[in-house]
């Protein structure tokens, strides 16, 4: 087609009017009106023709949907500024690439006579039609249930003060290999065993391998998949944007109507399409799930192993009701899994770190030892347990030993006391005997002496009785001393 000189749309509109009358149309779509208008190569002519269309629509009582291309940056929308002025409603559509993933955005910039939500929203096109990432309601209205359900196994429920609340969201974070999927699988199995419809969404790992892997730790999902209670969906993430994932999950929730749901790992949706979109999607997804009163367990990878820092790139830990963190403790040549509950809204929960042990019968939690401010796990825990046992035994043995020692000492002392007592008695007896004999001897000898004196008549009987005269006394005393062989100095001087 060659263009030579100016043209106008009068002919076209005449043709369209004829067609409209022929078929009784009320609506008309001008798809890509810009293609036609740019041929005019004259902004004023373009404007004139647009007004011609508007008048024609009014005249024929028709409603029109007009699409026009906007080149490049959105500032160039202004090239159709007059058209935006003319029409009653303007809907902007934008497609952009972010990290190799196409993102579609929709924005209503004008709607005469009607309220509308301002701002840019994601829009998606899928087999089930077109879906707009509806803006989140400013006020969150979620019913709070106090019904508890098992998080998977008893000890974890105990740690959570009795289990998870119905309709709550649980976030499990941890570096790769910390058994996030296992915990999520246990939760799903428990839900199925209660007879609740469950949806298991996994990214980057097929549902078959997941079933096989979980069976190795005693979690059997296959029968529930067969019975239709459990729906497993595995999505690829390398080229699909977060918005598309959300769309898919929405339709899955609508189809399967689950009461419990697992998303493993949610962080995978950020793989393609950039983190900002993924964050928004993650939030909307959690709200969507809550709106549907689905109890959800979400796993998320965190690159580092620092639960103090925001654990997920997606920043969903604030939205989640319960946050379980899994980590490794590497010590003495082994790697042990540790489980901590960082938060659990509205319920008491344990503040202790537990060792997560995977066995054939499923995951279990073991008590951990804290020694010198450090947590001991695995072999170190066993060693510590062993050490504790030995210590106790040693303590008991030492006690017994000491007691018998003391008992022996006591017995010995008692024996000694007995011997000494006997000796004492013997001495006492000997003393008594000796004292008695001596008395008897003194008495008998003095009696003999007096008897002798009386017989010799050396002393008057009365003197002897009342002390006698001085001189006589002296003499008798001296006599007595001499007799006993003792010398008194005074006695010499007088002699």
């Amino acid at each position, binding site marked *: *087609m*060659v*263009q*030579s*000189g*100016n*043209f*106008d*749309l*009068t*002919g*076209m509109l*005449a*043709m*369209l*009017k*004829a*067609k409209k009358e*022929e078929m009784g149309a009320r609506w008309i779509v001008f798809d890509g009106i810009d293609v*036609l208008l740019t*041929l005019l190569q004259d902004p004023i002519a373009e404007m004139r023709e647009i007004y011609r269309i508007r008048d024609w629509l009014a005249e024929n009582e028709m409603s029109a949907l007009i699409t026009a291309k906007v080149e490049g940056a959105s500032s160039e929308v202004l090239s159709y500024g007059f058209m935006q002025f003319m029409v009653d409603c303007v809907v902007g559509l934008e497609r952009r690439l972010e990290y190799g993933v196409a993102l579609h955005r929709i924005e209503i910039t004008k709607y005469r006579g009607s309220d509308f939500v301002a701002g840019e929203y994601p829009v998606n096109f899928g087999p089930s039609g077109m879906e707009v990432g509806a803006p989140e309601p400013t006020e969150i209205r979620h019913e709070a249930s106090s019904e508890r359900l098992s998080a998977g196994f008893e000890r974890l429920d105990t740690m959570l003060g009795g289990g998870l609340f119905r309709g709550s969201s649980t976030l499990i974070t941890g570096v790769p290999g910390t058994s996030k999927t296992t915990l999520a699988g246990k939760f799903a199995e428990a839900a199925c065993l209660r007879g609740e419809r469950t949806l298991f969404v996994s990214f980057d790992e097929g549902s078959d391998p997941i079933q096989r892997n979980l069976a190795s730790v005693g979690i059997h999902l296959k029968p529930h998949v067969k019975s239709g209670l459990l729906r497993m969906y595995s999505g690829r993430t390398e080229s699909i944007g977060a918005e598309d994932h959300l769309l898919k999950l929405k339709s899955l929730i609508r189809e399967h109507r689950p009461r419990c749901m697992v998303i493993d790992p949610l962080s995978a949706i950020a793989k393609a399409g950039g983190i900002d979109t993924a964050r928004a999607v993650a939030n909307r997804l959690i709200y969507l799930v809550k709106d549907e009163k689905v109890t959800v367990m979400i796993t998320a990878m965190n690159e580092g192993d620092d639960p103090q820092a925001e654990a997920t790139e997606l920043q969903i830990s604030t939205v989640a009701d319960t946050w379980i963190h899994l980590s490794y403790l590497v010590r003495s040549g082994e790697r042990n899994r540790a489980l901590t509950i960082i938060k659990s809204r509205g319920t008491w929960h344990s503040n202790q770190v537990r060792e997560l042990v995977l066995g054939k019968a499923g995951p279990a939690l073991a008590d951990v030892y804290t020694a010198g401010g450090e947590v001991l796990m695995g072999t170190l825990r066993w060693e510590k347990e062993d050490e504790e046992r030995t210590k106790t035994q040693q303590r008991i043995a030492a006690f017994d030993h000491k007691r018998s020692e003391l008992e022996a000492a006591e017995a010995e002392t008692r024996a000694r006391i007995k011997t000494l007592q006997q000796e004492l008695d013997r001495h006492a007896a000997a003393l008594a005997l000796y004292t008695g004999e001596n008395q008897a001897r003194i008495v008998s000898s003095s009696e003999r002496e007096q008897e002798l004196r009386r017989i010799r008549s050396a002393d008057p009987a009365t003197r002897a009785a009342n002390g006698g005269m001085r001189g006589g006394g002296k003499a008798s005393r001296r006599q007595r001393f001499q007799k006993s062989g003792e010398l008194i100095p005074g006695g010499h001087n007088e002699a």
Partner: protein
Amino acid sequence: MRRKARKEGKTGPPASALTVMRLYISDNAPNSVQAVANLAAICKEYLEERFTLEVIDVLEEPLRALADGIIVTPSLTKVSPMPAAKIVGNLGEKSDVLIALGIKA
């Protein structure tokens, strides 16, 4: 209003074939009036009598124009000789029209 002009070429070299054209206009809209005048001048100057021109008023025969694939007025189509050509606008750019009609290379 419908005008049909048919002029049979009588003079000129018989070797050159007959040019068959259709001009779609909308009544007396300025561009349409200009197009009629411009085409008349070109025909007189270059084709003399060796052409057939059918002028179709879209306002009168809208469904025919629609069937012919016409979008805007004025539009000129060359039906023969081949190749067919379509020129939109008031035909003010004479050289472009001559090239499109195959009169001038």
